C-alpha cells in the first residue's frame, strides 16, 4: 500500500507478458485489454463486447482464463499474462486449423486461450466440462462443433 493516504491514479509498472517484462504507463482505470492492445500492440485479444459476455478478449493470467476487458491492468501486477501471441505452435492452434474451427476469426484467439486453459487444467476433460467451459465464449459464425472437435483432437492425442 502507498505510504500516503492517496491511491494510485497513474503509474509506471512492468507487466510480465508472454515471458517478457514489459514496461507500461497506465491509469488505474485502464483495463488489461486496453493496455495489451494499445500499449503493447498485442491485438490478438479482441475488444468485442467489453462487457464480459463474448470472451473474445480472453487471456491466461497465472494459469487462469480471464476476460481481459473485466480486469484492470493494475490488478495483473506480479502475474504471468499469456496472450494468443505467446502461444507458439500449441497443439490447440493446429487443431483449430485441422478442424476448420473458425470462419471469420474474430472470436478465435479468445476461444483458443480458453481452450488452452481448459487443456492445461483438465487434460482429461469430459464432455460436461468441455461444454461448461465453452459457454464462456461466443462464436457468431457458430463454429461450436468444430471447436469441440479441435479440443477433443488435442485431449484424445494427449
Amino acid at each position: 500500500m502507498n505510504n500516503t493516504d492517496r491511491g494510485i491514479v497513474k503509474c509506471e509498472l512492468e507487466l510480465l507478458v508472454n515471458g517478457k517484462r514489459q514496461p507500461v504507463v497506465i491509469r488505474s482505470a485502464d483495463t488489461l485489454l486496453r493496455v495489451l492492445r494499445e500499449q503493447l500492440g498485442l491485438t490478438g485479444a479482441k475488444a468485442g463486447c467489453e462487457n464480459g459476455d463474448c470472451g473474445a478478449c480472453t487471456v491466461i493470467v497465472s494459469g487462469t482464463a480471464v476476460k481481459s476487458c473485466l480486469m484492470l491492468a493494475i490488478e495483473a501486477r506480479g502475474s504471468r499474462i499469456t496472450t494468443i501471441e505467446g502461444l507458439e505452435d500449441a497443439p490447440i492452434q493446429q487443431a483449430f486449423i485441422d478442424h476448420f474451427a473458425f470462419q471469420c476469426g474474430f472470436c478465435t484467439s479468445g476461444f483458443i486461450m480458453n481452450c488452452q486453459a481448459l487443456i492445461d487444467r483438465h487434460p482429461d476433460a469430459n464432455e460436461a466440462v468441455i461444454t461448461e467451459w465453452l459457454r464462456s465464449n461466443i462464436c457468431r459464425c457458430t463454429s461450436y462443433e468444430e471447436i469441440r472437435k479441435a479440443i477433443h483432437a488435442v485431449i484424445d492425442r494427449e
Partner: protein
Amino acid sequence: MISFDFEYFKPATVEEAVRAFWQAEARGKAPIYYGGGTEIITMARLDQLRPGAVIDIKGLPECNDMRFRGEQLAIGAARTLTDVEETPLFPLLADTVRDVADHTNRNKITVGGNLCGRFFYREVLLPFLLVDSLVVLAGPKGMRTVPVHQVLNGAPSLARGELLVQVLSDRRYFGLPYVTVKKTKMERIDYPLVRIAALRTEQGIRMAFSGVSDIPFRSLRIEAILNDATLSLAERIDRVIATWPVPILNDIIGSAAYRAFVLRNTLRDTMTALERRSL
C-alpha cells in the same frame, strides 16, 4: 474503456482497507471496495458508477480464507466463485455458483462481490440464507459478526464503508438434502427468470429465491405455507404465489405472468424432489 480516473489501493490488512476507505471518503472520492471488479468495471465503462477510489481487497488474508474452523466454514469475501465450485466444502453453495455467469467470469467474480453487488440477482446469497450463515463485517469501530439475514436478506443494508470480510456457515447443514435450480429464458448462463435454492431440515423445508423479484430473499412466511401439512401441494403453491411478498418482475427477460408460471412449476418440482428425499 473507463472514461474517468480513480485511485487504486491494495491494502494488506483489513484495518488498512477500512482506513483507506474513510480517508478517501473524507476527500470526497466516493470510494468502493473492489473484489473481482466485474460489476464495477462493467458499470464504470457505462458511466453508471463513478467511484473516485477503489480499494482492492484481494490482498487481505481474512478475505482469502476458505477453511473449517471447528464446525464453521469460513469463506473469505475475495474468494472467487470458481474457488467455491472447485473446492466444494459447502455442496449446496458449490452447486448454486456452478451456474452463475460463465466459467471464465466465475474465475473473477468473488463471493463478496456477488453478495454486496448492485446487480440484484445475487444468487450466491441463497445458500447462505438457508443455513443461517453469519457475516463478518469490518468498519471504523472494528469487526462485528451478524446474521446474514440481518444485512443481506433482500436489499443489502451494510453501513456505509463497512467491508464484508467473511461468511461463516455451520457444517451441520451441509449433509442435508437440497435442491438448487435456475430457470432462464434461453441460455443457461443468462440471468434467472426463477432461481430457487431449497434445503430440507428436520423442522421443514427452507427456500430462498432470486430472479422472481428485484431482490433475492428468504421468507419465513413463505416457508410456513410450504410446510403446512393441512394443505395439498397445489394449494400451498397457489397460496405462496397469491401472497408473494414483493412485486414479481415484469421485464424483457420475462413478463410477470410468465415468471409466475415458471415459479409455480419450479416450486412444484422442488417440493416434490425434496419431499421424496429422506433426512
